[in-house]
């Protein structure tokens, strides 16, 4: 058992504008039925004027407000993203500036695709106890609408924009975390400005297979290492890419679907933001009770995947 983190507050922020499946029908050859059957997605929030800085700062403020902490209590600030507002300063530095965090609070970005929040948790668990201030601010945020090819009906229907944040503190409560990588630039990529071709490219079937093979395995390994049967896990919070992946994972793990939180119908795949947005929704809805066991698994571009099993 490793030393881990306690969630002291959560927050989320999504752009105001909602793009429905019906709206997409006017942009590409698709249908609401097609999108829902393959993804479970009905609508997504898309930036129209808001920036990733607006979203990440707002999500962070909401998490800090819930935790009841001030800027001078934050000792480490990490933003998981693949779509930072600019190459430099990093997104975390922009958040640092807007929130007025302390000079001895390191701030940096982390790119692990849709697994970013899990990579961030483990990084936080390792570094936060070494900092001079008690709380860590971890934000997952992406504006994938900036890199989506809006003429590609296979990918443009999948994604949405948003940010989720958590205020964390070191904790002695049981904590297990596993991170994985299988470097592969062929099945998911978005080259960005570096190669002048920014659109997301995704081999749908290969990605689906990658996810349904790795997610249950990762979850079961975590439970085994923590010596906690899956039956005793209260909530499974998986990356919200596609409900078919979540359903396949539930079947393979022999766990009731009701224990798997789903919100991609309203947000689409928000990349690094999906898990913290889900945690914040659950938290604010009173679904998460103190002492509950939560198993979260992220997976995505890199390829990266990873999970954490923790106590709320």
């Amino acid at each position: 058992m490793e030393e881990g983190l306690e969630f002291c507050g959560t927050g989320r922020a999504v752009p105001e504008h909602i793009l429905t499946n019906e709206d997409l029908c006017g942009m590409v050859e698709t249908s609401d039925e097609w999108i829902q059957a393959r993804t479970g997605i009905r609508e997504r929030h898309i930036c129209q004027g808001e920036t990733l800085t607006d979203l990440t700062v707002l999500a962070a403020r909401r998490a800090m407000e819930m935790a009841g902490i001030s800027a001078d209590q934050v000792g480490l600030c990490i933003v998981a993203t693949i779509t930072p507002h600019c190459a430099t300063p990093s997104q975390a530095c922009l958040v640092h500036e807007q929130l007025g965090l302390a000079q001895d609070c390191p701030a940096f970005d982390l790119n692990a695709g849709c697994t970013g929040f899990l990579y961030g948790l483990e990084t936080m668990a390792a570094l936060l106890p070494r900092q001079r201030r008690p709380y860590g601010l971890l934000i997952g945020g992406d504006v994938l609408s900036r890199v989506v090819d809006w003429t590609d009906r296979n990918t443009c229907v999948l994604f949405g924009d948003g940010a989720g944040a958590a205020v964390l503190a070191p904790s002695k409560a049981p904590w297990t975390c596993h991170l994985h990588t299988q470097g592969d630039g062929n099945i998911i990529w978005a080259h960005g400005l570096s190669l002048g071709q920014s659109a997301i490219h995704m081999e749908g079937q290969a990605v689906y297979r990658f996810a349904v093979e790795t997610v249950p395995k990762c979850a079961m390994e975590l439970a085994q290492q923590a010596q906690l049967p899956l039956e005793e896990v209260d909530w499974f919070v998986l990356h919200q890419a596609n409900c078919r992946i979540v359903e396949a994972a539930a079947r393979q793990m022999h766990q009731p679907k009701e224990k798997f939180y789903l919100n991609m119908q309203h947000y689409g795949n928000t990349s690094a933001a999906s898990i913290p947005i889900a945690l914040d929704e659950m938290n604010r809805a009173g679904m998460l009770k103190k002492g509950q066991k939560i198993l979260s698994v992220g997976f995505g571009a890199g390829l990266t995947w990873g999970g954490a099993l923790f106590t709320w």
Partner: protein
Amino acid sequence: MFEKVKKVIVDTLNCDPEAVTSEARLQEDLGADSLDAVDLNMALEDELGMGIDDDALPEMKTVGDLVKYLESK
């Protein structure tokens, strides 16, 4: 082989066993979409110890195509 493949198809696609004939088209008749195709292939690998190679997957139109491919493997 047909009976084995039929069982995997019925279990994976959750379809009526009566509908799974050699001529049945996976997509049009049995309602399999691109993600079901991946599930089906993984289930074939689990149950029969062999699946459809990625490059042959698009040619698998009917249940009979699957059986023929697996028999020749």
